[in-house]
């Protein structure tokens, strides 16, 4: 009887897990002892970090997408058929297309989504770059922008923790290139009492902002946006006027997680080391879907996936787990249109970003293409 591994979610986390398992379990796949199936929501795979460049015309849209079937190893059975209900007690998942799939091991990699609609007025009054439609609208709004107040507004929780800083520095460079700096003001808002969640990054960003004249409002958690009056108001009681609102909306996990009663807000309670769903021995969680209190980022998904691949392969071939996830996260940080830096940390090693350089920026640009090797599990 074949062992069925079912992966729910075709984003970066699920894709790396699927491709990595194909390499680790090649003999078992060939003999039919193991079957790997993935349920995705779309035919295409999107390089999400590339959306940051869309508003500035610095990436072509077609560069963001690949056919998911070409990214996936051919041995993965791939259905574009979103999961509708996940029943961990019965070891089965039903889909919107009417399938019911049984599994021996389940990987939940359903990701996260922006929820601008959760804040009154945000969807109508804000621009964002966290999905393609939003990034296009922001590009169009920037093209028409002739000066004024731009608010960059970060909300909790959100994926890609450095994106609010990156978009701010990139906006500054964009305005400078358009000779709009003298007529413009950038105001950055952040949910906690400093400019970034990571203290060393916040300490680095503050003098950079001061040098560039970028203003900031900390302890700012958006309560409402008034698109008519063009104001944004925080739960802390501060109201700011804007001419262009660039927001990083709050995120939630996938609706199927909520509907299946697997986690509040779509975040699945997960063991920080084994990546087991709490209460399950055959259900693993990977990427943004976990409730682990670390960054929701592609690198987190990647490092978690590497551990999951080893553990699932070991379970199937040696009936034991191979190793623990150590909490590793790595993020590039674009510090403008021509410089960048990076930061890494894990559960026990604090972050310590180095000085920005052109070299790191170039490497980030190279990674925009190397990503596809990551997704294929080759990097």
């Amino acid at each position, binding site marked *: 009887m074949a062992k069925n591994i079912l992966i729910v979610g075709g984003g970066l986390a699920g894709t790396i897990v699927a491709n990595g398992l194909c390499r680790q379990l090649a003999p078992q796949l060939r003999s039919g002892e193991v079957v790997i199936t993935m349920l995705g929501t779309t035919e295409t795979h999107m390089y999400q970090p590339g959306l940051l460049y869309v508003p500035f015309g610095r990436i072509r849209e077609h560069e963001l997408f690949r056919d998911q079937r070409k990214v996936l190893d051919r041995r993965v059975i791939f259905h574009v058929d979103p999961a509708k209900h996940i029943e961990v007690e019965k070891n089965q998942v039903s889909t919107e297309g009417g399938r019911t799939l049984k599994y021996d091991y389940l990987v939940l990699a359903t990701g996260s989504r922006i929820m601008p609609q959760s804040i009154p007025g945000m969807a109508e009054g804000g621009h964002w770059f966290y999905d393609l439609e939003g990034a296009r609208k922001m590009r169009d709004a920037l093209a028409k922008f002739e000066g004024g107040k731009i608010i960059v507004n970060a909300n909790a929780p959100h994926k890609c923790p450095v994106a609010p800083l990156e978009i701010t520095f990139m906006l500054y460079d964009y305005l400078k290139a358009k000779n709009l700096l003298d007529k413009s003001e950038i105001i950055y808002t952040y*949910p906690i009492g400093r400019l970034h969640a990571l203290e060393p990054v916040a300490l680095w960003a503050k003098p950079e902002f001061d040098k560039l004249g970028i203003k900031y409002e900390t302890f700012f958690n958006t309560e409402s946006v008034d698109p008519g009056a063009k104001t944004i108001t925080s739960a802390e009681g501060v109201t700011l006027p804007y001419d262009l609102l660039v927001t990083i909306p709050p995120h939630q996990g996938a609706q199927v997680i909520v509907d299946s009663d697997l986690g*509040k807000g779509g975040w699945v309670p997960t063991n920080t080391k084994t990546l087991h769903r709490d209460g399950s021995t055959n259900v693993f969680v990977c990427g943004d879907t976990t409730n682990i209190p670390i960054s929701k980022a592609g690198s987190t998904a990647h490092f978690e996936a590497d551990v999951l691949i080893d553990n699932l392969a070991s379970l199937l071939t040696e009936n034991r787990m191979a190793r623990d996830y150590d909490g590793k996260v790595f993020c590039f940080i674009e510090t403008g249109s021509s410089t960048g830096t990076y930061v890494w940390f894990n559960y026990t090693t604090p972050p310590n970003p180095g000085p920005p350089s052109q070299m790191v920026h170039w490497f980030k640009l190279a990674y925009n293409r190397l990503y596809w090797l990551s997704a294929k599990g080759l990097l």
Partner: protein
Amino acid sequence: MQTIDARGAFCPGPLMELIAALKLSTIGDQIEILSTDKGSVADVPEWVAKVGHKMVGVTEKGDHWSIVVEKAK
């Protein structure tokens, strides 16, 4: 009471985790956050006061702190 174990969490950190959890809670819910970051002892109460939630208590527990907050609005 929901407990968020943010011990050793560098990013997004204990306060950001608390803010996110409160968004999914209803008025009257209490949330305990565990933090190894001494800064949480200052910045959580500061934020709670600014936004109008209620501080229930801060307890030092050896190598970490337990901070309990009640959603009030």
